[in-house]
């Protein structure tokens, strides 16, 4: 589970870095980085790109089709799109559910 989560965090950081660029600060993103809300570095367009990019990279890496913006995400107590870590946790749950289907 942890291995999976670390891999997913790497994927999210890679996509996030491609979107906003991290030339001057290679360590700009970690699992605590906000991706949504006031302190997030993404505008609405970049946020959409982030979600779509992560979805596609997860599909390619795990050979599984996922939709991040589904009804489950919207009904979670904690917003899964708050930080890179919370998004990774949410993706781990989705992938586990898919494996157990």
């Amino acid at each position, binding site marked *: 589970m942890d291995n999976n989560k670390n891999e997913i965090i790497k994927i999210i950081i890679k996509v996030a870095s491609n979107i906003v660029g991290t030339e001057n600060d290679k360590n700009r993103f970690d699992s605590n980085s906000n991706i949504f809300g006031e302190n997030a570095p993404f505008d609405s367009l970049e946020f*959409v790109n982030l979600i779509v990019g992560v979805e*596609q990279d997860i599909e390619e890496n795990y050979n599984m*089709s996922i*939709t991040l913006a589904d009804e489950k995400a919207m009904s979670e107590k904690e917003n899964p799109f708050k930080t890179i870590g919370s998004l990774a946790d949410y993706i781990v749950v989705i992938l586990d559910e898919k494996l157990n289907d």
Partner: protein
Amino acid sequence: MIITGTRKGVGKYLAEYYVDKGFQVIGCSREMIDYELMNYKHYNIDVSDESSVKKMFIEIRKKYHRLDVLINNAGIASMNHILLTPLKEVQEILNTNFIGAYLFCRESVKLMQKNKYGRIVNFSSIHIPLATVGTSIYGASKAAIEQFSKILAKEVFQFGINVNILALSIVKDTGMGNVLTDEMKGKILNRSISKSELNISDVTHTIDFFINEKSTMITNQSVCLGGV
């Protein structure tokens, strides 16, 4: 290019037409097709089944890495008084006509936005302005597409994608008016300006305009062929 609902009728004509024009066309339908075309790939899927649609798009992404055009043609026609329309039929119509169009738009935009380019054409119907008796559910599904398209156009313009609506009446020789009696056909067509059936060339001419590379600013437009 993706065209939905290519087993027969307008969808099949469009697949043939755009293959002829040099497009790599990907089509789909619930049932098997009885034809083959060069540069045409067919998927047998229910357009409202999310996992099948997603699988199809993953394959397209892996194979072609891009998508330029989506023509959301798939639809179920229905003519029935509201008191005689079973709930199951309502669900089927909304699923195919609206949910299907929504899923294809959503997945297409994900692919198109990577290249900052895309053209989406969603099909509506002359029954929206005419509010024809018997088309309450069919009309509702098409009205949903129209409103959806208007907002989609605003949300995806920043990705270089245009979204337009093509509203059809009855297209000649496509089996489109099969659920209608001649009298009903006459009544509907008489309420259009042209008072005549459409030719498939009217449809392709309009789509050509919408999907032209130069049509960046042609977005959120609705064309009702034949005029109302």
